């Protein structure tokens, strides 16, 4: 009983945060970032249904997102022409249904095997559809894409969705609904068997389930939600192009889900939020942000195989035991030099890449030609690196200390 109340309040909190965000950040830019996040969250969660829950590594998930989006835009055009008549709040559903149909068709032959074979089929289909989208211009609109106006449908309680803020509230509702349903899916027999098939498809067959059928169901569900995300994209930007179904978009959703943490339901949400923020904020400050993103991604794969969510969940034991506080100081001792090291490294990278002779960084002007400047930041970087390395041991000890039960020290 307590558990379910806790769970319900968690969901209520989620909804509240979603709806309250624009109260605190109300610029057009932040609304635009929130809309982006909303789309990314649904998309990344749907990707996690495939990879995290079902063990299917896809390099072509954007296909369902994009196809859903294209159908959604074409529906907007139909509404504008007066061919169909319904409120645009249902547009994401249109995208979802088309994503589902596409997934049913492609899943019918691609889900026979998981692993490398599935990954390669997904790659092939992704490339095929992305390339075809540039050839079949009448539907995909070539590289300029297709565009539709969202304000022509019947008013929804007097709202015509001309402003991004209105779309945000609609998106927030859709994100909430989609998140709830995707979470509930994990609690159903089909969702549980997806985990079982991921872990051991052979064994799953001997408890009565066709691994292929189980994968197929996850695949379709994932296509449905990817399509919903695509429909939401169409509503938000009122256009869609082939770049929304190509390999780069597929790669980005993989990045999101992976950095966030595949094993956890909340992981992709974290990933979507972090990457969206990086994309929209970091790219303003540095042309090299993709380089930093690549480094971040590789470091995550290497050192945090369970992503950011995994990093957070690692602290569960210490949290439950009430020893989390003991970690604060050690984290600070390692964190400060590590942070300085990162800042100094970035300074060196940016300085070597700057166009002018002078580079302004954190209130300091660095000169590109000055070897003193170079030696100074280089020295700071090396010192900070050594300090970080040296402090790692105390962090490890503190970690052991916080995570070991008093009884099993000697075991």
């Amino acid at each position, binding site marked *: 009983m307590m558990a379910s109340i806790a769970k319900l309040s968690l969901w209520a909190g989620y909804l509240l945060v979603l709806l309250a965000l624009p109260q605190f950040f109300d610029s057009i830019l932040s609304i635009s970032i929130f809309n982006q996040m909303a789309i990314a969250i649904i998309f990344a969660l749907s990707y996690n249904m495939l990879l995290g829950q079902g063990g299917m590594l896809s390099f072509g998930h954007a296909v369902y997102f994009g196809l859903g989006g294209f159908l959604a835009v074409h529906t907007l055009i139909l509404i504008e022409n007066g061919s169909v008549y319904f409120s645009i709040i249902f547009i994401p559903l249109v995208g979802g249904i088309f994503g589902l149909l596409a997934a049913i068709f492609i899943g019918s032959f691609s889900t026979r095997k998981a692993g490398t074979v599935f990954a390669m089929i997904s790659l092939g289909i992704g490339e095929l559809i992305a390339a075809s989208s540039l050839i079949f211009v009448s539907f995909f609109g070539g590289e300029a894409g297709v565009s539709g106006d969202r304000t022509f449908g019947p008013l929804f309680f007097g709202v015509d969705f001309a402003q991004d803020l209105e779309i945000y509230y609609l998106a927030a509702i859709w994100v909430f609904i989609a998140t709830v349903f995707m979470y*509930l*899916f994990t*609690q*159903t*027999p*089909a*969702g*549980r*068997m997806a*985990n*079982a098939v*991921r*872990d*051991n498809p*052979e*064994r*799953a*067959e*001997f*408890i*009565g*389930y*066709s691994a292929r*059928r*189980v994968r197929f*169901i996850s695949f379709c*569900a994932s296509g449905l939600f990817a399509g919903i995300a695509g429909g939401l994209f169409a509503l938000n930007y009122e256009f869609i192009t082939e770049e929304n179904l190509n390999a780069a978009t597929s790669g980005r959703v993989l990045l999101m889900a992976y950095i966030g943490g595949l*094993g956890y339901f909340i992981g992709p949400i974290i990933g979507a939020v972090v990457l969206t923020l990086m994309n929209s904020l970091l790219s303003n400050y540095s042309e090299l942000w993709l380089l930093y993103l690549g480094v971040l991604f590789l470091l995550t794969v290497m050192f945090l195989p369970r992503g950011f969510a995994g990093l957070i969940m690692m602290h569960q034991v210490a949290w439950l035991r009430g020893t989390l506080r003991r970690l604060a100081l050690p984290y600070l001792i390692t964190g400060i030099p590590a942070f300085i090291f990162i800042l100094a490294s970035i300074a060196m990278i940016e300085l070597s890449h700057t166009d002018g002779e002078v580079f302004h960084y954190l209130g300091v002007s660095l000169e590109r030609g000055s070897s003193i400047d170079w030696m100074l930041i280089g020295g700071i970087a090396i010192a900070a690196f050594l300090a970080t390395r040296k402090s790692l041991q105390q962090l490890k000890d503190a970690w052991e200390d916080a995570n070991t039960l008093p009884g099993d020290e000697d075991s």
Partner: protein
Amino acid sequence: MGILTLTAVHKNFGETEIIRGVSLDIEQGEKHAIIGPNGAGKSTLFHLISGLHRVTTGTITFKQNEIQNKTPYEVSRLGLTRSFQVTNIFARMNVFENVRCALLWSSGYRYSFWHLLGSQGEINDRAMEVLDQIGLKNKALFPAGELAYAQQRALELGIAIAGGAELIMLDEPVAGMSHSEASNAVDLIRRVTAGKTLIMVEHDMNIVFDLADRISVLVYGEIIASDKPENIRANSRVQEAYLGEVGSNA
């Protein structure tokens, strides 16, 4: 006619014939052991019965259904379950989920995505019962992959029996266990298969003679004898082909 009948089953892998005309009839409720030297084809026979491999020729009948062309999941749905030589569980799920998944099909949930398992009291209770039976109740929320070896084997047995199958096939259920673990496992097997039909492959002759009602000896893809334990022990062909060598080091 018994619960499971094999008639002139052959299996070729390319040129080589692994199973060379096996016929076998297993009665309802029987505890049947298949023994034989390494490479005799015991595991292949298991794979054929459970649908993992297709037979080359011959028929396999389970409860009046011909199953030689059926897939593992179709066979499994008819009430035939098996374990594996190498531990085969759902490693990243917890122990409780492992057992509950095994219960799903027989409880009629099929591929449902409209039932929420958390609110299905009956299946959760039954999963706990099974956990109780196999002695893993206190490990219910443990990730299965982190259990000790013997516990993983017990869990595998739990998965195998959870679906309420009538015929249970165990492939070397105590391999790799210590003496005490093995005897615990035998007790467990006896308990959970009470009233059901059991077919097992096992190398440990003490356990075979302890558990089985009837023993078939498989040598080079053929059954050279199928009889009560005491008769098998006395059979000269079996001794010559197999028991002699194994018996000495068993």
